[in-house]
């Protein structure tokens, strides 16, 4: 029996997963970034022993707590969706995903959950240094958590360290180190976490700017602004360095994604970087993608037509050649299963050898037209520009704020404070645009080159997926409204209230 998958089912399943992931991703970056800033502020408090810094720490810790409480467990829904909406995918990757997600649950989550209670309940009950250690262990736990989730995600972008077992129809891990420390996982972790730091810094700077505009809590706001700005500049540096490494990695592993970011249809050895419209920086794309002055960067048409020379000297396959090899891989897969069922081991071994040869193109066997291999270019083109453009705005904001703080001229330029406040929603748009670039850029693949989304999805009723989509939309919207209201109320109260009572 062959199961037919309706295209609308794939679209709704993707929409549901995207909705959940986008919602989950509203909370994670602030947890990572604000946690780091709280850790730094608490170091200042412990070193100086000044009550003022303790109040500063407690105020930001309260906002951290609100974000953490509303965001916690939203990632679990994604794991449920794997089993329900993406059951084929879950079966095929189970052995690879199981290890990182189990480590994430056992080590990182429990570490985070244990020390966060000391962080909030432990003031005056444990020593300052123990409290500081607990704060940092909470932040480290959250960061390790992110590491394992991103290892799993990176494997979908660039599957390594596994072998496909045609008997169990599963990818089985052969090298944990290859999976955990693949270059894709490393750069993804660095870029994602440093972007979370940037989110935290923009948030702290924005809220501090709001206090300065209101002429409230001036000392607190200036102190927070100074730490937020310095940390933001450091975060920007890491974001740019890791973003550069990410670009190189994408150019090697997912050239279609890179070409789509740039809307590059015809490649060149001196490819220009498009800013917007006709504004281009000559040769810059080639340099960013390869760190060379002359190197061929394939466009979408080149990737579909093949024939260009790859860095290893071989000739790139066309889409049709890859699809032919994919169909051959699937034929070998069928042959293996038939031979195995009949007990014909020699024939099964031969089929398996053929399968392993064509395995890198396995997913292409499900592609019917070359156009399916092109992700939505306009969405990626603009998401990439929103991400980079807003990232550049934050660099500019931090630099200007640093200069004005050094010269003590902040009060002369209220416009920059307004920009600081408005950057709070913008940093979330930037962060989500980055997520869209990473995930939509991988389309049509659930696992790059191995499993397209239409083969990964569960054969459910489309109406069931639509129903849960709208239930999630309602629940997530309510939770988001609750968070924003509680957060705004806490900010408006400011740090001058009885923080000792309020923070818990």
């Amino acid at each position, binding site marked *: 029996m062959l199961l037919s998958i309706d295209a609308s089912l794939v679209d709704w399943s993707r929409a549901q997963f995207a909705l959940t992931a986008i919602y989950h991703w509203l909370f994670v970056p602030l947890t990572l970034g604000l946690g780091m800033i709280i850790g730094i502020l608490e170091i200042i408090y412990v070193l100086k022993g000044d009550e003022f810094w303790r109040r500063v720490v407690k105020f930001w810790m309260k906002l951290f707590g609100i974000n953490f409480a509303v965001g916690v467990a939203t990632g679990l829904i994604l794991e449920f969706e794997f089993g329900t909406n993406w059951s084929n995918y879950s079966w095929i990757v189970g052995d690879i995903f199981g290890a990182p997600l189990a480590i994430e649950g056992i080590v990182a989550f429990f570490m985070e959950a244990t020390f966060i209670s000391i962080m909030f309940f432990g003031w005056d009950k444990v020593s300052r240094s123990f409290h500081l250690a607990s704060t940092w262990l909470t932040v480290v736990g959250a960061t390790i958590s992110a590491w394992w989730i991103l290892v799993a995600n990176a494997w979908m972008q660039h599957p390594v360290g596994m072998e496909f077992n045609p008997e169990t*129809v599963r990818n089985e891990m052969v090298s944990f180190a290859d999976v955990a420390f693949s270059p894709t996982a490393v750069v993804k972790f660095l870029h994602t976490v440093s972007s979370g730091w940037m989110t935290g810094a923009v948030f702290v700077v924005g809220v501090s700017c709001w206090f300065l505009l209101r002429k409230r809590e001036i000392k607190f706001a200036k102190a927070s602004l100074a730490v937020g700005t310095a940390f933001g500049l450091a975060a920007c540096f890491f974001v740019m360095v890791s973003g550069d490494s990410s670009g190189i990695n994408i150019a090697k592993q997912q050239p279609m994604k890179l070409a789509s970011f740039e809307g590059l249809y015809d490649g060149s050895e001196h490819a220009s970087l498009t800013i917007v419209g006709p504004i281009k920086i000559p040769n810059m794309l080639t340099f960013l993608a390869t760190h060379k002055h002359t190197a061929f960067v394939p466009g979408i048409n080149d990737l579909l037509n093949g024939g260009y020379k790859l860095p290893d000297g071989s000739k790139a396959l066309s889409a049709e050649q890859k699809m032919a090899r994919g169909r051959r891989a699937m034929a070998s897969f069928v042959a293996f299963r038939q031979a195995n069922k009949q007990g014909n081991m020699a024939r099964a071994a031969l089929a398996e050898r053929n399968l392993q040869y064509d395995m890198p193109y396995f997913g292409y066997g*499900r592609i019917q037209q070359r156009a399916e291999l092109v992700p939505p270019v306009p969405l990626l083109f603009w998401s990439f520009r929103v991400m980079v453009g807003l990232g550049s705005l934050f660099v500019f904001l931090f630099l200007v704020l640093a200069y004005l703080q050094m010269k003590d001229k902040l009060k002369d330029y209220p416009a920059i404070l307004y920009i600081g406040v408005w950057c709070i929603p913008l940093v979330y748009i930037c962060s989500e645009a980055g997520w869209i670039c990473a995930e939509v850029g991988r389309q049509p693949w659930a696992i790059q080159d191995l499993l397209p989304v239409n083969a990964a999805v569960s054969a459910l009723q489309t109406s069931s997926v639509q129903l849960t989509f709208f239930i999630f939309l309602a629940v997530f919207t309510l939770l988001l409204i609750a968070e924003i209201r509680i957060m705004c109320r806490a900010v408006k109260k400011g740090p001058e209230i009885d923080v000792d009572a309020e923070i818990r």
Partner: protein
Amino acid sequence: MLRSVVSFYCDGFRRMTIGRILWLIILIKLFVIFILLRIFFFKPAMSGLSPQEKQNRVATTVLGVPNKNVKVNFKTK
């Protein structure tokens, strides 16, 4: 030791203010996720199948409609 740990948490929870609202949100959310969604909506698509049946199901789905006419073509490399 155990008593001080229990007292640490009891005291912490007792003195919560904004934390009470946050815990209420967390509990409602966990109820929705683990009771409502898990029981009524998120039934694993292949629950109740044996490993062999799961393998066959996935193998069939992965091959999909376009492979109805796939011809098994053996060749040695």
